[in-house]
């Protein structure tokens, strides 16, 4: 009976660990996949790791992450240690109260910490701006020019660092406090009694005593820093991006094996740190338990030897060298970021051939600070919060309309963008920017049905397939209210931009009915890739460029733009009002609008270019790059022919009442 029970609990533990670690294991395995699918194994390869180190976005964010984590850890460890010591000089009641207060930020939801820090910084910047203006004016009126305070501060590396320091300090205090509690309170008195000043006593006696706590505190702070996404996301602003933020930006489109590779490395490095800190703790515990019986390790004998007075020079030299390396790396970064002209670009993840950035930097000497946002709405709220400092953004059509309406964009001087003349006429004078004053189109594409010919009978040519019982359990509903409802509207014969509540409710009823009948397997965005490539779903709605990628990975897949018509979308480069680096921004936009850049992007992203020449030359370019002919069918999917495009309708910015109707309907669907 007893034995039986054991097996049961072992089974549960085994399942628990499987559940915990299987996903990570899967991710690690697929990071070695030769193909670029996350569902189909195509052999072992280190290809993605190689690519990882060539990906400048990732490498830059790794550098930022390491620098922020190291600096934040160093500052937070020092501050937290002294704070803990300060706490211990207080009476017990005050100390306990303060330690409780110290624990609150750790319990607090990261999102609250992040948002509140962001609000705090922005509020501070505003009052600082007012103060700086007043100060500078005052100085000018007094005839001085010596000190001009910057009037505009934005979120960036500094705020990111401050935020990390702020959330790390409690962890350090939490780790140092127990060591202080264990320490004999007379030790500090004894050291001072023997001739030390307080500071000397701190270095010679207290520090060695509480060092294990400081080290584990620093390790945890470092791990937290490296790991953090949410707080960084709200405080990094436009100029800096941590690794976690970059990974998140990259997943916007799809999970590439590159992300698997970088996640694997991130997981392993955090694992190593945790193992080190745990082993240290375990060692120390056993040391305390064993007392005299312990044998010293080689490392400790070395440490002992180094700590002898006659090896002082070794210690000094080592400390000096470390400090030099650190200062050098910090100054290289600050040199790289400050001394060269720069342009701040915000786009989407996986939305540029990164070689283009290198080319631009080499030819112009301008540094491109390339950041990514995860959606139009996220970009909008970031801009509204005043925390961002971008020059060029690449929003979608409907969002451009909104930004223009709210006077957030700078009218462009097209004489500085000669390549804009290459834009095909089809992409001029579009409803969101009828006079072509604000935009340079970047890419465009269509929304259509991708389906698995081996799982569906016959060809699909209508949106009705999405709601058909014949496909029950095999349809993926696109997880985006505008697209899902827009398709339903088209199917019912309405405009995607209708503001008629009744029409929208009819469209919703159509989806809800299908949902109740169990037609949908689930809702999906990024998961579409795995599901479709792995034959796990038969029908999905997705963007043409991405569908081409899926079709390369699974030959059974086909793409169609249904006869009822569809949505076509266009993302365009815009300059933000009062952008600080306008000259550089114009150079960047002109460079990206060039035919070569358009060809490279079209090939890399899979979305169609708006450049007339690039559209014509792409089949040749493809042959050149891949060594084989481009399938004309594939070309037609990427670049919807005029007669298809005719059937498609672009989204317009909807009035807020309609938007909230969309939102509430979409939320309602989730609860049914």
């Amino acid at each position, binding site marked *: 009976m007893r034995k039986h029970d054991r097996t049961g609990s072992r089974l549960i533990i085994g399942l628990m660990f499987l559940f915990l670690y299987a996903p990570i294991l899967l991710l690690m395995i697929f990071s070695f996949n030769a193909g670029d699918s996350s569902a189909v194994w195509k052999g072992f390869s280190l290809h993605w790791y190689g690519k990882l180190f060539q990906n400048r976005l990732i490498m830059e964010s790794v550098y930022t992450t390491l620098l922020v984590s190291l600096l934040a850890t160093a500052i937070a460890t020092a501050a937290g240690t002294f704070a803990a010591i300060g706490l211990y000089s207080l009476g017990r009641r005050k100390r306990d109260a303060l330690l409780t207060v110290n624990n609150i930020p750790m319990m607090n939801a990261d999102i609250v910490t992040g948002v509140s820090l962001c609000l705090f910084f922005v509020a501070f910047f505003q009052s600082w701006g007012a103060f700086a203006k007043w100060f500078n004016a005052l100085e000018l009126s007094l005839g001085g020019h010596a000190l001009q305070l910057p009037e505009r501060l934005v979120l960036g590396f500094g705020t990111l660092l401050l935020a990390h320091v702020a959330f790390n300090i409690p962890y350090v205090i939490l780790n140092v406090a127990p060591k202080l509690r264990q320490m004999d309170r*007379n030790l500090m*008195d004894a050291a*001072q*009694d*023997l*001739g030390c000043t307080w500071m000397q006593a701190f270095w*010679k*006696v207290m520090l060695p005593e509480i060092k294990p706590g400081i080290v584990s505190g620093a390790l945890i702070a470092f791990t937290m820093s490296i790991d953090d996404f949410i707080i960084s996301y709200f405080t990094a602003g436009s100029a800096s991006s941590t690794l976690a933020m970059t990974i998140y930006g990259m997943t916007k489109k799809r999970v590439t094996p590159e992300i698997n590779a970088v996640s694997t490395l991130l997981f392993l490095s955090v694992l190593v740190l945790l193992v080190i800190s745990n082993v240290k703790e375990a060692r120390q515990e056993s040391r305390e338990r064993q*007392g*005299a019986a312990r044998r010293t390790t080689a490392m400790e004998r070395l440490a002992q030897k180094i700590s002898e007075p006659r090896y002082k020079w070794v210690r000094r030299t080592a400390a000096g060298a470390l400090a030099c390396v650190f200062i050098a790396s910090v100054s290289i970064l600050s040199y790289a970021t400050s001394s060269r002209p720069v342009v701040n670009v915000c786009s989407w993840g996986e939305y540029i051939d990164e070689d283009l950035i290198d080319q631009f930097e080499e030819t112009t000497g301008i540094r491109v600070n390339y950041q990514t946002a995860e959606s139009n709405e996220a970009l909008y709220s970031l801009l509204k919060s005043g925390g961002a400092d971008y020059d060029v953004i690449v929003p979608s059509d409907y969002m451009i309309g909104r930004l223009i309406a709210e006077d957030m964009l700078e009218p462009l001087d097209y004489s500085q963008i000669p390549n804009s003349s290459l834009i095909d006429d089809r992409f001029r004078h579009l409803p969101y920017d009828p006079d072509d004053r604000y935009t340079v189109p970047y890419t465009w594409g269509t929304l259509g049905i991708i389906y698995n010919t081996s799982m569906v009978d016959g060809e699909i040519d209508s949106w009705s397939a999405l709601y058909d019982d014949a496909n029950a359990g095999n349809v993926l509903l696109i997880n985006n209210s505008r697209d899902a409802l827009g398709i339903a509207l088209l199917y019912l014969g309405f405009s995607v931009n209708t503001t008629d509540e009744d029409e929208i409710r009819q469209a919703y009823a159509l989806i809800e009915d299908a949902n109740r009948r169990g037609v949908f397997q689930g809702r999906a965005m990024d998961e579409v890739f795995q599901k479709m490539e792995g034959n796990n779903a038969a029908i999905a709605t997705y963007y043409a460029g991405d569908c081409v990628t899926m079709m390369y990975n699974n030959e059974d897949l086909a793409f169609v733009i249904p006869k009822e018509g569809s949505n076509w979308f266009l993302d365009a480069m815009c300059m933000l009002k009062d952008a600080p680096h306008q000259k550089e921004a114009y150079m960047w936009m002109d460079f990206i609008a060039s035919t070569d850049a358009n060809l490279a992007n079209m090939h890399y992203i899979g979305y169609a270019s708006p450049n007339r020449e690039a559209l014509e030359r792409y089949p040749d370019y493809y042959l050149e790059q891949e060594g084989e002919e481009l399938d004309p069918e594939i070309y037609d999917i990427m670049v919807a022919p005029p007669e298809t495009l005719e059937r498609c309708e672009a989204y317009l910015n909807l009035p807020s009442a309609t938007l909230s109707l969309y939102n509430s309907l979409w939320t309602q669907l989730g609860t049914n």
Partner: protein
Amino acid sequence: MSKELIRLTDCVMAFDDEVVLDKINLSIKDKEFLTLLGPSGCGKTTTLRIIGGFQTPTSGDVLFDGVRINSVPPHKRTINTVFQKYALFPHLNVYENIAFGLRIPKADAAGKKVKLAEEEIDRRVMEMLEIVNLKGFEKRRTSQLSGGQQQRVAIARALVNRPKVLLLDEPLGALDLKLRKDMQNELKRIQKAMEITFIYVTHDQEEALAMSDTVVVMDGGRIQQIGSPEDIYNEPKNAFVADFIGESNIIDGIMRSDGLVEIFNRRFQCLDGGFGKDEVVDVVIRPEDVDIVPEDQGQLKGTVTSVTFKGMQYDIIVDFYGFKWLIQTTDLSPVGSRIGIKIDPDGIHVMKKSEYSGLFGDYSSYSEEYEEISDASCGPEEEDSGDEE
């Protein structure tokens, strides 16, 4: 004894309105072994910490060699301390613990910081190890030492700096009885050998009497009595001192005239005088000063209610007219027997009434009191008054 080294004048120590030391006046001579004695919370450790420089008195002066040192930090005083539970540095071995103070650069006469040469440090550490009988233990970790050995390291660590004054805060509290007796002798020997002032804090009256030149009895933040061990024992100033030092029967009495005191309506010859006529006083009679005689020959007559065999003597409790006395005797008188007692004039000590009158010296609840006494001596005080704040 020679000149005065340390003087405390009107020292007051208060934490948040709680007065821990109330106008302490104390003079400490050079090369003296002085003990601060009292129950926990009496202010003895606070006094020691003021002398050591760890606390600054709220008001009053601390003079060292005639110079006011109220706010001189500990590291600038030529005073070293042996702490409760030793406070050895766990990350250093025995040698480095002792060398700790020597390795700190000290200002010389010209105010320049000088470091001792490694050879000088080595010589002095080895010399100290010899004095405290710990040769060959240099490389040991402190956690590998016994309590007594740790104690010696703590003493060596303090003395190696050649202080003018050594402060010892309940240094023997954590040792067992046998080791304690040995260390008492050892400390006395070291003090004689080093020829420096020892200021010793303890709650153990036997220890205080055995080692000290001068004993300062403290209670409630005030000094109750200063004197040689003999003075303190034989001529306690009030009921508190009489009770705290040794065992005492303290009885209400009336001073009929110089040399004549009345207890229980019977007159006794005594050696004390200088009281007002018919003044109400406290009378101290030590248990060993009472002679047991047959009932009909006794000055007082009572009934034995309890007998405890103590090895050298019996502790018996005798009921005199409802008031219980402790008497120490070598002759057994069984429980329930009637006895008489005689007290010689020099066995009677008369004290003025004080705030402590009526609080001590009654043995009607003998067994409980006895436990209390043994409790108090079984461990060192964890925290003295005020340390926590």
